[in-house]
């Protein structure tokens, strides 16, 4: 096996195509706003979630700058509460949950199945507009008084604070249904739209990951929907279901909330794992090690994720008996997760690895995900969690999983499929620099947080004791490095749209069906209806192209 060299000279000329690409086939605002094409909907999501990431990122940077001094450098304490709540809501509900499935999944999934579109294109567009509506409602809640509860909306505090909790709850309800409809659509698409000859075990692993994610979206999200609806009723009419002043039990709110929000963590990480599987195999030019194990581990992570939510409530007053059960069950998640990590490393081992930009992002993922996953085992351990609960250790842990893993996998995927999406290539040198900046920046930001968290620095505090200032300052420096890395990325990606070189037909030498379509794909994706005959991930064949 040798490293794949894309045939840039043979980059497709506009005239040589049988049909115009999906980008050229129609023009104008309504050809995008009213499109049923999964690729255009995917791109609209891509723009939307990136904007949300930018907003959430600026808020994060403000939080870090505020914490430069022990007394807080920027905000009033109350404003600080609103800022971190908005950061959480933007990053969790508006950015990271739709990020990979709705943007990359929408674009790539039908291509990988050799299908002309998702099964339900109208529903697909409807979920985009639900997402947009939910986002606008969330922004409205910010303008109409802001929410300061954290993204978890715990009662009874969320019942005593501003009325904006109601509109924010309804925003989350709307965003939830957007997520449900996307997941539902993808399940149907994977079941009913596969190419001839594409059996379940010839599905690329990204499809398996999206499938497992979709199951979670469909089954878990409705419970969040009813929870935030009840929260809104509670706030407006004091119905008492979650309010101890009216006979309700706040712990029940937490049960309902985490019944969704623990699986939601896997709604975030499972598609990221799918992206990493694809990136690792293509850029190592080697079939994935343990394909079936990777596929089944996605499904088993999805199932186990419904059994562990109580590990968020070890200090909330749930009974000792269920604490023990939840702590034990939480350990089970580590098994399929470790299988994945080892499979990726084994895939890279002995492959002809090309250190391209997507691969660098994937390697950064592998490093940070190992940290995030292992610290999760600490937190799942009942006795240790009593000490670490609600400290910066938790903050650092879930940022390692959400930001350092999911967001990095999202960007790995964006870099990986960018030439397919736009037919243009970004500046690879700059891309590699930004990948390294982000890897370094992430660790400078969050390793000090692990340290001070284990010493007891509580999360969500606007001030702290001077002993922790050095940690906070390192963390802020790291956040600035991260900010520079992301700003650089935004710059060269936008630049590539106008001035990037034309991408090769198959820029990385991928062998799944997404790379067989014209670059960029046609309106209905392929020139001919694809039929699957060979093996999956067969680079011996693919390298001869």
């Amino acid at each position, binding site marked *: 096996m040798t490293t794949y060299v894309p045939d840039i000279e043979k980059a497709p000329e506009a005239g040589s195509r049988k049909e115009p690409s999906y980008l050229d086939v129609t023009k104008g605002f309504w050809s995008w706003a009213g499109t049923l094409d999964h690729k255009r909907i995917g791109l609209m999501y891509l723009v939307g979630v990136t904007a949300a990431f930018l907003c959430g990122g600026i808020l994060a940077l403000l939080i870090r700058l505020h914490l430069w001094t022990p007394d807080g450098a920027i905000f009033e304490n109350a404003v600080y509460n609103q800022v971190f709540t908005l950061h959480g809501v933007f990053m969790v509900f508006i950015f990271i949950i739709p990020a990979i499935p709705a943007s990359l999944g929408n674009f790539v999934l039908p291509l990988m199945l050799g*299908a*002309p*579109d998702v*099964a*339900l*294109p109208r*529903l697909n567009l409807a979920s985009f507009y639900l997402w947009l509506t939910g986002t606008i409602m969330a922004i409205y809640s910010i303008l109409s008084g802001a929410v300061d509860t954290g993204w978890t909306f715990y009662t009874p505090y969320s019942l005593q604070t501003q009325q904006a909790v109601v509109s924010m709850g309804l925003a989350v309800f709307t965003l939830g249904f957007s997520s*449900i409809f996307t997941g*539902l*659509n993808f*399940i*149907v698409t994977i*079941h*009913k*739209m596969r190419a001839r000859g594409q059996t379940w075990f010839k599905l690329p692993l990204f499809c398996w990951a999206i499938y497992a994610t979709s199951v979670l979206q*469909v*089954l*878990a*999200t*409705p*419970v969040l*929907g*009813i*929870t935030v609806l*009840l929260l809104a*009723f509670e706030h407006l*009419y*004091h*119905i*008492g*279901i979650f309010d101890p002043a*009216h*006979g*309700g*039990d706040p712990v*029940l709110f937490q049960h*309902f909330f985490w019944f969704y929000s623990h699986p939601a963590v896997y709604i975030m990480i499972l598609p990221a794992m799918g992206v990493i599987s694809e990136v690792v195999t293509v850029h190592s030019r080697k079939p994935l090690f343990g394909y079936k194990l990777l596929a089944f581990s996605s499904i088993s992570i999805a199932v186990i994720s419904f059994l562990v939510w109580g590990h968020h409530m070890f200090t909330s007053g749930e009974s000792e008996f269920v604490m023990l059960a939840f702590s034990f069950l939480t350990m089970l998640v580590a098994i399929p997760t470790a299988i994945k990590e080892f499979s990726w490393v084994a895939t890279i081992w002995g492959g002809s690895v090309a250190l391209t930009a997507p691969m660098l992002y994937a390697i950064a993922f592998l490093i940070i995900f190992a940290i995030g996953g292992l610290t999760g085992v600490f937190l799942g351990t009942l006795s240790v969690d009593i000490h670490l609960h609600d400290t910066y250790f938790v903050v650092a842990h879930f940022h390692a999983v959400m930001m350092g893993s999911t967001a990095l996998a999202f960007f790995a995927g964006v870099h990986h499929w960018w030439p397919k999406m736009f037919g243009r290539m970004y500046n690879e040198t700059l891309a590699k620099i930004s990948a390294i900046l982000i890897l370094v920046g992430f660790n400078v930001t969050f390793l000090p947080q692990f340290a001070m968290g284990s010493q007891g620095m509580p999360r969500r505090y606007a001030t702290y004791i001077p002993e922790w200032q050095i940690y906070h300052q390192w963390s802020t420096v790291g956040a600035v490095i991260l900010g520079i890395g992301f700003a650089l990325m935004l710059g060269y990606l936008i630049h590539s749209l106008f001035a990037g070189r034309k991408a090769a037909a198959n820029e990385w030498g991928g062998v799944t069906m997404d790379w067989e379509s014209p670059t960029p794909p046609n309106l*209905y*994706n*392929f020139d*001919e*209806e694809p039929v699957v005959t060979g093996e999956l991930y067969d680079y011996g064949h693919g390298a001869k192209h």
Partner: protein
Amino acid sequence: MGHSTIVTPTPQGGFQTHTVAHHFKTAEQEFQSAKLAFWLFLATEVMLFGGLFAAYIYYHDVYPETFQKGGALLDWKLGALNTGLLLTSSWTMAMGVRASQLSQRKQLVWWLVATVVCAAGFMVVKYIEYSTKYHHGIFAFTGLFSPDDHYAPDLQGLAYPQLYFNLYFTMTGIHGLHVLIGMIAIAWLIWRGAQGRFHSGWYTPVELVGLYWHVVDLIWIFLFPLLYLVP
């Protein structure tokens, strides 16, 4: 890909032809995709109502006496009447789907009309129940829970009686909203069915609305004993 237009077989007698959407290869693929999607949607409905049921069982366990005395204030005869109405509508809906499968245009319309009539009857009974409660001060969504003592002497001294009634109003309210949405959907089916839009070759909307309507019925099957017949 897929340049030929696929249509489903259309029976004689003024029925409209259905063209399969361009991204499907067969009519069967289109029908089965819509159906799987709808079953998944119904699964989300189960989970959504499931949260409410979990809350109900939880608080029933915490405040058994409140729930028993609260439930005794509901009129089980009206509840049973509504159960009968919804079961009847479920049957007429099933017959409506059958009529569309057999391309029986007139029968389809009449079965659907019967379904909407039963649903409307259900809503009228619900309205009577709600307004009775409202007049006796048992409607906490107005912010004030002040049951009058002649109507509800048993509620005095109970722990959090409004919790039971708020669950009752929330559960039946969200269920009632589903009934209303179903009525609108069935009215649309009647309109299009009368035009001959649905027949043995294509009856997907009738099938899907039918499934939805049965789930509305399923939820009520559990709501009735839980709310009206609390032991």
